[in-house]
């Protein structure tokens, strides 16, 4: 299981809708809207599916881009 910290950069007019959409995704936890442009999200996804889940966010109308601030693959690399 990989855990990633994401900043979702969103057009201001779509912020609320995008945040609501992400909240509906079971593997995502949101940490609020910040500076009128970012949504802080933590993804907990098996690394094999990370890209698909992040892509699903990218596809939401109003999302400009996603910045990854952190990824840990500790479980997979150390096998604990």
């Amino acid at each position, binding site marked *: 299981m990989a855990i990633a910290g994401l900043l979702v950069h969103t057009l201001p007019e779509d912020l609320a809708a995008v945040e609501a959409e992400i909240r509906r995704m079971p593997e995502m936890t949101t940490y609020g809207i910040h500076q009128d442009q970012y949504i802080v999200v933590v993804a*907990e996804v098996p690394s094999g599916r990370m890209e*698909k889940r992040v892509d699903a966010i990218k596809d939401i109308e109003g999302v*400009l881009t996603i910045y990854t601030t952190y990824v840990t693959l500790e479980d997979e690399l150390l096998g604990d």
Partner: protein
Amino acid sequence: MGISRREFLKYTAASSAFMAMGVPFAMAAGQNKQVDHWVKGVCRFCGTGCGVMVGVKNKKVVTVKGDPNNHNAGFLCLKGALMVPIIYAKERITQPLIRKNGKLTPASWDEAMELVVAKFKDAIAKYGVKSVGYYGSGQALTEETYLASKIFKAGLKCNNVEGNPRLCMASAVGGYVTTFGKDEPCGSYDDIDAATCLFIIGSNTSECHPILFKRIAARKQADPNVKIIVVDPRRTNTARIADMHVPFKPGTDLAILNGMAHVIVQEELDDYRFHSKYVTFMDNNKQKKTFEDYVKFLEDYTPEKVEQLSGVPADTTRKMAKIFAESSATMSLWCMGINQRIRGVWANNLISNLHLLTGHIGKPGATPFSLTGQPNACGGVRDTGGLCHMLPAGRLIKKKAHRNEMEKLWGLPQDSLNPKPGLHTIAMWSALAEGKLKALLVLCTNPAQSLPNLDKYRQGMARKDNFIALIETFSDAETVKYADVVLPPAYWCEREGVFGCSERRYALVGKAIDPPGQCKPTVNILVDFALRMGVDPKLVPYKNSADIWKEWRAVSRPTPYNFWGITRERLRRESGIRWPCPTEDHPGTRIRYVRGEDPNIPKDYKKKYFFYGKPDGRAVIWFRPYKGAAEEPDQTYPFVLTTGRVIDHWHTGTMTMKVPELRRSFPKAYVEVSTEDAKKMGIHNGDNVLLETRRDKMVFQARVSDVCRPGLVFVPWFDAHLLINKLTKDAIDKGSKQPEFKICATKVSKA
């Protein structure tokens, strides 16, 4: 309070995002507990040069996060954050390999090095030093490039020293040198935060430099009055945040830039006081001219005439020019769309012209600024002189005074350096194809995928009568197929060294872990090579990269590059320092050529600006005429083919294709076709489409969208199974010798 480890990791992930925004978060301090230690470094990918922190646990790298103290303020793009699996890829080469009976087989270091040296010595004995060479990379460390260049130029007296930055940055170098007299940008990333107009041309910043795009978007967010102009034939993601997206007919950029200058002088939006004091006007024959001559030269570029050539409506050119000139601070950003052209140097000049004409230079937010493609193209290759015509710190081989200065610094007899520049990249690979180059050492680059018109040069690599020694990390890199010997280097954070990014910022990549198997730091491989070749041991007295760094600081010291104050100790302590930096207490330089900012200018210098790269202290506005592409579309080949990157892959994909998340995101190359063209040809998403140029043909799956303008198709170049460079053209800029990857003519049909 009891929380599970998973909860803990989640808070850590969230806190990293908060820290990246500069918002305090309670769990931030807890981050340090989950790894044994953090090592400071720089991302391995693009030229943005983001600072990273590499987390090590049980002697393994387990995580990478953004360095909050570097310019990226803790942010990383997805590629950067996912670097860990690449280190542990199953394709890592961990012992030397020698080709025997057509197959690469394991060998000892001694056996491999002896073979390499025997082949080089044999070639030199039979055909002279002109028959050997070195081909390096903007991904090698600064110390590695400096050393390789020194071994060949000073040790072997061979100037056949090149590198892949010739394919990406050479035109920017040519542009800066002809306009300002010295290479590298005047400004820095800080200018993004102060600009009120961002003029982006020939750069898909959002996909190629995502962290800078973030900074640009944040600037616009902070001040809605900031204007963003994106000039690009594709409607990229970068164009989505622009106030003006200006698509145009590929290859007409020079006309558009001259058209903007025409509007600026006609509407008197120029800064006459600035250019009359600090600018020389010069025609294409290097003859001094007047401002009035320039106005006359621009008569050929009325917005109406430019419209006929480029398809950009005359009013749009007028509007762009007005926004550019009237903003309080304009910053231009460009990349390969400008550099990879047969008149790339001229295009670079024309961008700087606009800044010199309007005085948008040398003030916070006002600067021309080229973006780099690789993590150490500026650093390693441009600054330390890792090309066939250069010596370290902006010195030139053809200038006797420069050679003599380097001879003194390197402890060589006077006039002992070879005064004849070597072969530039395309000439070098052509010489290999023609059987003139017999032995080549290639470091940290993948030319069998990255050169244009590949078939021609791959045939050269495949010749049996030459010898290629490759220092390469991954067994599946295309060039490995053609190597006679492969030497395994320590990768990225497995050895220490310095990267220099687009904004003249140098930062240390710390050593986090030991390299696997028999891999060695490249510095040690190169020193071993030199000693076995019989190079004077006094020329290569280095145990590690830190020893070389010390010498490089001294070599740069008498020049305006001046790295003297950037000590190893400071690099360990700080997250990057921008040269020039003459003393240990100097903070580094944000803005060059301005008194009070640039330490190369005496404090009592009488004027505010001093373009000290030019004899008269004035920068040059060049009269550069419009020139189209080497291969324009015609009736037989009616489309323009352009190539580039996608956000999740980098260069030839040897690294990013090893990350499952990235590989699945873009598993293979595709062709982007405009909705309008697709409709005409009956092409739908996912259909097979045949592209055929004068060089080769290939089938790609179609992606139909409104990104490309009609008449243009785009293919990304990361895919080793669909080598788009077999189709691209190897025409080069006469000045910079950089190939025109961005434009060639192609047929497009449903396959």
